[in-house]
């Protein structure tokens, strides 16, 4: 069997996001097992391990599942990711962190075992600015943009990029940290109210999201000028604010909603068969879809690995090669019943970061639905690439890593 552990969190402060993500992840593999008999005829086992978003439990989970022949890890936590980067490199197991984790891991020359395509936080920051440029006819000169962020490694990731972009496009950036968990954001929002920034970008997670949306509504901040990263754009985040949340925007690197053909199969093979993961009420939601996206990419990478290795029983090293050789095309997505669900990309030895595009979705409070208002927007690679190179070089130097792929 193929073992893909699911380091999930269904408890603790971030359970609200962790639950649907883990469900989406599990359900897709269940679908593969039930419908196709696994990947390439090998069944996939998804042993779940609860981390509660806690690094120590993450380590325990990693050690506990590693012995079972784990092929790839996806812990959905930037903290745990940093923890595991050195460990997976030593143990030779792939770490796949779509849309989170250490951004500079996109540089495959330094991070052999880590992949974070299709997009990372710096991509996200850049896409958001690109979108705003479009809205403002190509110039943000003299505009004020505030970044409201989770005061942790995760929230701090985009700062460097945004500072670079501010220099390039001539807007001023103000940074407003919010301590976890973020139930109390009065100060920050009063400041927003006083400073009247043109736009607010938001890097939050957990309860911080819903409070921020609520507070924005309270101070009557125009919601369509408030843009969250993809982890701040789920139904959970906007529903509590009711109508006030109408018009709030968020990034996403995968499609949302239950309209994809794959859901017919999921219903047939998984939900109706009583094999759904969790309570089964989150299918089609934003975070569920993202969990499913991760599962899709992992299964495709395994398929690729099987193809390369010529055997369905691949090991961890072969799976890594699969990740490195992975190419997701629009056609393949359509085959999977997920047309337009994600951006096409192709990984290489040096590029573990993918195309980096993301879409903008907007909340419709009346219909209680997210709808996509743009297609994939490309990030500004000219700004990002040097940053990635610089950060990964520092890591390489600190850890005596010689660059690969030369």
């Amino acid at each position, binding site marked *: 069997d193929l073992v893909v552990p699911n380091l*999930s969190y*269904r*408890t603790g402060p971030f*359970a609200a996001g962790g*639950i649907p993500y883990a469900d989406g992840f599990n359900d897709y593999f269940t679908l593969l097992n039930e419908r196709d008999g696994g990947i390439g005829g090998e069944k996939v086992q998804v042993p*779940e*391990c*609860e981390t*509660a978003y*806690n*690094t*120590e439990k993450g*380590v*325990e989970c990693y*050690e*506990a599942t*590693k*012995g079972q022949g784990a092929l790839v890890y996806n812990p959905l936590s*930037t*903290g745990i990711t*940093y*923890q595991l*980067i*050195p*460990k997976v*490199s*030593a143990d030779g197991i792939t770490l796949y962190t779509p849309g989170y984790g*250490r*951004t*500079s891991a996109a540089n495959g020359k330094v991070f052999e075992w880590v992949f974070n395509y299709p997009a990372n936080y710096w991509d996200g920051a850049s896409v958001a600015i690109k979108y705003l440029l479009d809205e403002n006819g190509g110039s943000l000169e003299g505009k004020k943009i505030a970044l409201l962020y989770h*005061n*942790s*490694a*995760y929230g*701090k*990731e985009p700062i*460097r990029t945004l500072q670079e972009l501010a220099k390039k496009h001539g807007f001023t950036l103000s940074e407003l940290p919010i*301590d*976890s968990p973020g139930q109390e954001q009065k100060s920050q929002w009063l400041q927003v109210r006083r400073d009247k920034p043109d736009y607010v970008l938001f890097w939050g997670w957990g309860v911080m999201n819903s409070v921020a949306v609520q507070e924005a509504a309270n101070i009557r901040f125009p919601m369509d000028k408030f843009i969250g990263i993809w982890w701040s754009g789920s139904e959970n985040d906007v529903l509590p604010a009711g109508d006030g949340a109408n018009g709030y925007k968020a990034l996403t690197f995968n499609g949302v909603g239950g309209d994809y053909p794959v859901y017919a199969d999921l219903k047939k093979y998984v939900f109706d068969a009583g094999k759904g993961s*969790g309570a089964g009420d989150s299918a089609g939601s934003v975070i569920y879809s993202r969990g499913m996206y991760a599962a899709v990419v992992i299964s495709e990478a395994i398929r690729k690995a099987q193809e390369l290795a010529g055997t369905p029983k691949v090991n961890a090293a072969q799976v890594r090669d699969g990740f490195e050789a992975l190419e997701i095309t629009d056609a393949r997505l359509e085959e999977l019943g997920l047309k337009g669900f994600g951006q096409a990309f192709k990984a290489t030895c040096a590029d573990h970061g993918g195309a980096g595009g993301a879409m903008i979705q907007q909340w419709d409070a009346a219909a209680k639905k997210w709808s996509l208002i743009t297609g994939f927007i490309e990030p500004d690679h000219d700004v990002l690439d040097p940053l990635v190179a610089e*950060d990964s070089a*520092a*890591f390489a130097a*600190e*850890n*005596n890593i010689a660059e690969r792929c030369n």
Partner: protein
Amino acid sequence: MFYREAGDFKTSYVDDSQTFPIRFDRMRYYAVLVLGFGILPFVMNDYWANAVFVPFLIYAIAAIGLNILTGYCGQVSLGTGGFMAVGAYACYKLMTAFPWMPMPVNVLLAGLVTAGVGVLFGLPSLRIKGFYLAVATLAAQFFLVWLFNKVPWFYNYSASGQITAPERTLLGVAVTGASTPAWAKYLFCAVFLFVLAWLARNLTRGTVGRKWMAIRDMDIAAEIIGVNPLTTKLSAFAVSSFYIGIAGALFFAVYLGAAEVGEAFGIQKSFLILFMVIIGGLGSIFGSFAGAAFLVLLPVLLKNVLVGGLGWPTDLAAHIELMIVGALIIVFLILEPHGLAQLWRVAKEKLRLWPFPH
């Protein structure tokens, strides 16, 4: 009679103040040493080392440290997480600034730095007592975490504020970094624990320990008897922080390998270590070990039973695990408010009388 103390007559005061005055205990102690240093490191795998033993050893150090402050000197502190962070960041700065420095020196220096910080935050204890002090130490906890999160110098200006331990070797074997073998991690921490526990035992049985305990039991009477509360409390803060700093340094460098301050050294850590000390037994070195073992092992055990054994969904298991841990804490307190150490003592007293009821 399983437990004999007959036949042990002391002829000198030195004998009488031995740690294990009873021969049976002494033999058991040597047996544990042989097991801990001679056998375990060579049979354990990565899982046991990383999920159970290494955290146990490190938490035991932290628990001894906190026990010195809270159990022996009576100053309840909730700043343990913050002080561990000081140890961790001091160790990180030392490791990166002086790559040639041997790891044990780094760890010890980190402990000393923490001791200094501990004394600073211990100053209010001269005025503030009891739970007021406990809450006041939270100021240290939150401030330190904020500081390490905010000032880039501490994390060497890395993009996200994470710190990662580079590889360092000792006698040619890696002790930090990803390629460290399980046994090396274990032994490195075990040696620290052994030496520190021995020192703690010495400190607590002599003059210093008596001063601490006097302050704990009745600070006014102690002062009237001639104990200087200033130096006594501050020395407890210093020694305790030294231990906790070392624990923090090991926690970051040897166990986790990378850390984010709010996550690894948050307030939860302070509480966790306080639990260990209380569950284990305030004012008992053995209790610190017992408490650390209990709280490291219990969740792992429960998880393996509930998820691995009974096959429950992880979330349900996690919730039930919370309930069980909570209930067990209460049950233990009801059975024996003075902790596992006292439970053990009572059991011994019973065994000593066995087969008679009293």
